[in-house]
Structures are given as C-alpha cells and as structure tokens.
C-alpha cells in the first residue's frame, strides 16, 4: 500500500477496520500519529454535529402518529359504514324480491301482511280523529268520507308496495277494521274475499278509489262494506 492509498483509506475511515491498514499503522509511528489526529478530529466533529434537538419533538412525533392512527381508524369506520349500508341495501332488495315472490300479485295476502306489520296500530286505539283530518287526507284521492257513524282511530298514508295508500282504522261495533284506500291505478287484481287464521278481508271497487277491508275473523265485513260504498264519494274535478 503506497502512501497515497494509505492516506485515502485512513481519511475515509480513521478507525481503520482493515487488517491491511492495521499492519501499515504498526510499522510507522508517523502514521499512528496521523491516525490519532484524525480520531481526535472525529471526536470534535461528533460533538459539533450534535446540535440541540427541540425538546418537544418526540412528543409531537408521538402525537402525529396518534392523529394519523385516528384518521386511519376513521377512514376504516367510514369504509365499514359503507359496507353496512351496502349490506342493508342488499337485504332490502332481497326482502322486496321476496315480497314479490311471496305475495305475487295477491292483494289480500299483501293487505294481511301489512296489517300484521302494523299490528300495534290496531292495539292502541285511543285516538279519535276528527273527520276533517281524515278528509284532508282523502283529498289526495279527490274524495271524502261523509256520514260515517263510527270513529276513525288511525289515518296515515302508507306505502302499499310502491303505491301511496291511505291506511285507516275504523272503529265499528264489532271491533276495529283496517281500510286501505288505494288509487285506481294500483295494479293489483281485485280480491273479493281472502283470509288467514286470524283475519279476513275483501276489496271493494269504488268510483275514485279501491278499498281493501281487513278485520278479525269473527267480525262481519259486508254491512260495513255496504255502508262505506255509500259514504265515500269522489269528485275527480277537485283532485289536487
């Protein structure tokens, strides 16, 4: 190893790790002296390079990570919500499809299912609605109920499988009767009579709307159907 190469190697790494360099150092006092100077320089350099570090830097680095972790968690949560929404939508579609398959085009079965679905409405029958309220809703069908001698407990628009229908619960002497008022273009096949173990019902074609009546099995429907046929009147000219 010539002098130049020795210096090049020593200057690039004063600790002189290689055996070749160690041997060269052993043989020459002047070289040893040079190594000591360079090691001394490195010590000074290390001290000079150790500039002050901001005291709170470590804390900020920890905080940044927690913030980033929180954001990542939030993104993951949003993603989870997305999946949940998709699952709910799919479930809804499956149910809708199931309804179509299950009920087909059978007005009676769907009406019964609807009554069961809102069975709670049949139980809490404390409310008595003024006829004006009922007729305000009936205005949607350009119709009105006039001269009904019983009470109306419940009147609300509902979604009758895609059709906007008026869901009424009337109080008769026999007990509550559910009446769905459907617009003429509801698309269901009329059903003169249907029943299951608990309820029975029938549909009724009026001038401006069709009615579906559902009541408990022991209740008579025909007298009410006859009365309603008279008491519901329609005036297409008034349709809003």
């Amino acid at each position: 190893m010539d002098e130049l190469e020795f210096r090049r190697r020593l200057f690039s790494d004063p600790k002189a790790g290689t055996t070749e360099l160690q041997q060269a150092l052993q043989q020459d006092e002047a070289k040893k002296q040079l190594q000591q100077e360079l090691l001394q320089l490195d010590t000074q350099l290390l001290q000079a390079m150790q500039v002050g570090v901001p005291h709170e830097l470590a804390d900020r680095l920890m905080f940044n990570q927690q913030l980033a972790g929180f954001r990542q968690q939030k993104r993951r949560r949003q993603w989870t919500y997305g999946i949940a929404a998709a699952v709910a939508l799919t479930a809804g579609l499956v149910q809708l499809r199931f309804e179509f398959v299950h009920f087909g085009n059978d007005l009676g079965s769907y009406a019964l299912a609807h009554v069961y679905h809102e069975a709670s409405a049949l139980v809490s029958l404390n409310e008595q609605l003024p006829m004006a309220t009922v007729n305000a809703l009936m205005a949607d069908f350009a119709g009105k109920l006039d001269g009904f001698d019983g009470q109306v407990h419940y009147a609300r628009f509902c979604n009758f499988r895609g059709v906007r229908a008026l869901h009424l619960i009337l109080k008769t002497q026999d007990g509550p009767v559910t009446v769905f008022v459907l617009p003429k273009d509801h698309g269901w096949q009329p059903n003169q009579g249907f029943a299951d173990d608990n309820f029975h019902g029938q549909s009724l074609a009026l001038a401006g709307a069709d009615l579906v009546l559902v009541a408990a099995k022991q209740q008579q429907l025909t007298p009410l159907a006859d009365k309603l046929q008279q008491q519901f009147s329609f005036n297409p000219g008034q349709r809003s």
Partner: protein
Amino acid sequence: MSSKDLRYQALVKTFYADLYRYAYWLCQHKAIADDLVQETFLRAWKHLDSLLDAGSAKGWLVTILRRENARRFERKQFDYQEIEQDELSDQHSGSPEQLAEQSQLQQLILGLDLEYREPLVMQVLLGMTGEEIATTLALNLNTVNTRLYRARHQLRELIKSTNLGSHRHG
C-alpha cells in the same frame, strides 16, 4: 396499544434526535429539519409493516428523510442563499474557548459541499458503515470513500488555516 404503536414509539425514541441532527446538516435549517423529521416519521408509521428488520431501521429512516427532502425541492425551488442560518448550539457545556471552537467547526462543516458533508455526517454522527452509506446514497463504495477522504482532508486544511484546535495538534 397495538404492537404497531409500540414499534413506532420505540423507533421514535431511538432515532428521532440523530435523525433531526442529520436533517439539519442536510438542509442547514432547523425549522425545515423539524418538518422533515415529522414527515419522515409519519411516512414511517404508515409503512411500518415494510420494515422487517430492526437492524436496518436507521438506513430505512434516512432513506425516507432524503426522499422527503428531495420532494421539498420538487414542490418549491429553494434557494439556500436566502435561508438565514440559525444560531447553532450544542448540548455540551464547555469553556467559552471550547464553545467558540465548536461553533467555528460547525461553520466549517456547513461550508463543505453537500456531497462531502452528507456521507461524513452519516459516518460520524449516525455511525453508518461505508457500505450502508453507499447503499443509501446509491453510490459505489469507492466513491463514498473518496468523498469521506476529501471531507476530512478539506476540514483538516481549513482547521489548520484558521488555527482552530492548533493547541491539540501542535
């Protein structure tokens, strides 16, 4: 706390001070060094799973920091001349003469070209081997050794000419 959090915290505790100092010698500005270290650790946290070997953590962090520093130049054309250099201080107490000497040495280090300064800081401050420096800087070992040689040679000449540390060499 997850194992990832614990790994991250260990990484911060072990390396943040040296990484900050390295960043300072790289960009010569304390506020920028601070930003660089924060960006580096944020990125490190995001990609912590890609760090498989704890032994390579230092080189990995240095590589991330160098990349962040390069991005800084992509974002904005920086003129070093316009940056006011901070007053440097160290964490060691000493006599006024020693502090003055150290301050002078710091200015000499800053005066080195980056291509000499950077490998020198990596070797002296971070304790990286020639091979590690070569890998990080994407240079061959000979080039790294030559730069280290020139860095020390220049500093020695400058020290002699300013009489700095002459009492030690005399």
